[in-house]
């Protein structure tokens, strides 16, 4: 709620951080960083993962207290004990880690702390109608306020989280990676809301890794590197920004893709398959090939990838690996199927990695039985394997004993890939592996993918970033309603073609 305190000083920024430093353990996340956003502007914070963007948002949003330096609101120094405290001063924050409570309903989550009450008690019957009204006021009609938060999709959870913050009319809105789980249409919705808020004089600060989003909405851009700001810009192109973010010039974002060797054997075939039980889906993935899967969200990508990994199996279809039919009922079937099928999922926290365990255990978990003699792990062999893999994938970790949870997102992703390389999986299912990963690490992942394909591994690759699909894949299958709407290859393969094929009939339907 906007406080009726003194009239804001026009010359002072709506929110500012001056010389803020913050260290976590031995890592200096922010190093005398300064930042300021004006009322009525949309201000993008960009930088690699680990550059300090999220930490700055947490400091501004009252989630963490800085070691030194301070935050000022309309020119007045402030100190917040908690995000709730900051919210009372008109700062609304959507943190990267969502704060929805899973076993409460959407309505309870949306209205928590502001429930309709009578005699001090929550009017439970009024929760859903009021939430419905709040959501409708923001143009959201597809989310059922009576559903449990645990039962709605990741994107819907993100939208609810955003809705909860903006419905309280913040004077400063902080959004940390708000679009990472949203598809285009949802991003459009968010940007429409941001424009509304900007028109009303709200200062909006957001972080994103998607350059086209940044340029389409941000009035100003502040670039962060190594825990401090590099500078604030109004018109800057992507190459320049990347140079400033990385401190070096990245020659080309996407490395050149060598062709699939002639006469490559099929590594993975799906025959008479289906992701939903009705629509037909079939394809062949050759050794050494990167086959892209594109299309709008919710067209069966997730089901396809988890289905090929047996988690859970596809409702219909025969899977052939290396020409031989295999039965994949659970992940262990996939891991041990002939060539070995490995899935690197989008949600590495809940689906792939054991965050509190060291890098070493996360790397060697599926191959422990072959690493052991008489049931005891051969420590020296394991250590050597881990050391080699860390070096080979350039995983940034002090040593193999570091808990995976302490690594950055991109490096966590590399640990997952490394696990399947150790397991000698020849078929890799990469599901949106670059989501929320910084530019430099993305680049490393691209090069790694091409190297793996060059070694004869077959890669099935889904990405929510269409550019990635266009630049890294030999072929791209565009899914719509669980069917292949288009198959795009070499000369016809570009981002526009993928987008066109994704939506062509979506409107007519």
């Amino acid at each position, binding site marked *: 709620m906007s406080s009726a305190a003194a009239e804001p000083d026009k010359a002072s920024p709506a929110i500012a951080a001056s010389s803020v430093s913050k260290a976590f353990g031995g890592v200096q996340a922010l190093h005398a960083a300064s930042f300021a956003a004006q009322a009525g502007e949309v201000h993008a914070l960009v930088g690699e993962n680990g550059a300090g963007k999220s930490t700055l948002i947490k400091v501004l949003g009252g*989630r963490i207290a800085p070691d030194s330096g301070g935050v000022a609101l309309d020119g007045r120094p402030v100190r917040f004990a*908690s*995000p*709730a*405290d900051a*919210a009372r001063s008109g700062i609304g924050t959507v*943190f990267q*880690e*969502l*704060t*929805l*409570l*899973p*076993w*409460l*309903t959407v309505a*309870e989550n949306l209205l*928590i*702390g502001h*429930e309709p009450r009578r005699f*001090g*008690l*929550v*009017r*439970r019957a009024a929760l*859903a109608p009021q939430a419905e009204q709040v959501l409708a*006021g*923001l*143009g*959201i*009609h*597809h*989310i*059922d306020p*009576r*559903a*449990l938060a645990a*039962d709605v999709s990741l*994107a*819907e959870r993100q*939208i609810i989280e955003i809705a909860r913050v903006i419905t309280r009319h913040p004077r400063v809105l902080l959004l940390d990676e708000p679009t990472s789980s*949203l598809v285009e*249409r*949802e991003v*459009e*919705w*968010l940007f*429409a*809301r941001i424009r*509304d808020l900007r028109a009303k004089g709200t200062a909006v600060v957001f972080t994103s890794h998607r350059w086209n989003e940044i340029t389409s909405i941000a009035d100003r851009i502040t670039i962060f590197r190594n825990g401090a700001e590099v500078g604030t810009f109004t018109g800057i192109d992507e190459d320049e920004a990347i140079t400033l973010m990385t401190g070096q010039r990245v020659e080309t974002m996407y490395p050149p893709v060598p062709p699939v060797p002639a006469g490559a054997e099929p590594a993975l075939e799906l025959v008479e398959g289906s992701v939903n039980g009705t629509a037909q889906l079939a394809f062949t993935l050759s050794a050494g090939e990167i086959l892209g899967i594109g299309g709008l969200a919710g067209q069966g990508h997730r089901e396809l990838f988890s289905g090929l990994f047996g988690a859970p199996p596809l409702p219909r279809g025969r899977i052939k690996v290396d020409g031989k039919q295999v039965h994949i009922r659970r992940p262990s079937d996939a891991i041990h199927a002939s060539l070995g099928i490995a899935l690197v999922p989008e949600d590495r926290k809940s689906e792939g990695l054991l965050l509190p365990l060291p890098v070493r255990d996360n790397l060697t978990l599926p191959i422990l039985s072959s690493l052991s003699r008489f049931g005891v792990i051969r420590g020296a062999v394991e250590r050597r394997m881990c050391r080699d893999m860390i070096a080979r994938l350039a995983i940034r970790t002090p040593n193999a004993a570091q808990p995976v949870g302490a690594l950055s997102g991109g490096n966590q992703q590399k640990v997952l890939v490394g696990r399947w390389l150790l397991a000698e999986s020849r078929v890799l299912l990469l599901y949106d592996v670059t989501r929320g990963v910084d530019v430099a690490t993305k680049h490393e992942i691209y090069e790694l993918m091409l190297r793996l394909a060059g070694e004869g591994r077959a890669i099935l690759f889904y990405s929510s970033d269409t550019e990635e699909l266009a630049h890294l894949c030999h072929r791209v299958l565009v899914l719509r309603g669980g069917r292949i709407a288009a198959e795009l290859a070499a000369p016809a393969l570009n981002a526009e073609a993928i987008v066109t094929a994704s939506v062509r009939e979506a409107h007519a339907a």
Partner: protein
Amino acid sequence: MPREATSPGQAAPRRSAMVHIIGQNVGVILAAIVLLVSIAAFCGMFLLQQDRLPGNFEVTSTVNNTMPLALAAIGQTVVVLTRGIDLSVGGVIDLTNALAAIWLTGSTLHMLGVSLLIVLIGAAAGLLNGLVVGLGRLQPIVVTLATLSIFQGLAIRVLPQPGGEVPPSYTDFLVSTNGPTALLFLLAAAIGWMVLRRSRLGVNIFAIGNDEQSAIALGVNAMRTKILAYMLGGALYAIAGLFLAANATAGDATTGDGYTLTSIVAVVLGGVNLFGGRGSAVGAICGAFITTMIVNILFFAHINPLYQSFYEGLFLVIAVVLGALIGRLVRGSR
């Protein structure tokens, strides 16, 4: 709001409010069904062996015998909802039961004051648990295991030998043998639960049980909420101790020991999630009565008392497995 803004997603067909309510209360509904089934089974066996249905006497004694467990289970529910667990239940009941046996005498007013004081002592025991768990950020299971022993020790100190005397008027008030009037206290407890569920404390209890870090980010004072939850639990165990004393018309410093485990059993049977954030005291009350009905059924089935805990355990496993399966089916069918 400008109308040109596109809705960010397509509206899926909605489930009706009723379907949501059923889906989100599967635990309580299942507990109620299991309770009805076990009552029916008991009545059937009673009818076979006695040629009549259970009468006023049977109903009254069943209700009176279950009251302490039902109250302890409600207290345990409040704690479990915060993603905690309270093993000190037995110790608090021991202590309050012993105090009741030696203090409850004299005028009605005096007994009322003593009862209130004993409930406050229960709350103070909970305060100790809550302070150590909340301020010390320690595992509830360790803290309450330690305080369980402390309260048991205090109880023995208060009443070294079983004894004392509870005036008949006190017994008549709480657990009259003329009819199941104690159900009125349960009704009051259920209404109290509804109120709690709608209060700020109730919302906060559910919030920290769902995700403590998120709840803190949303402005919930997690420490205060936990302390209050343990205090409320302690107060309810104390009331259980009073009912136990009234029922036995005397005190025993070890009579509450079994309630630590049975209160957890009742909570599980009542569909309360042991990992916090989901559940209802109404379910826990059902769970308490299911536990009693199982014992009654075993009695009428002429099961050797030596094997009683074996069958109790068996029923518990079956009930929990079935409950989990049905819960999964209901939630999976969306």
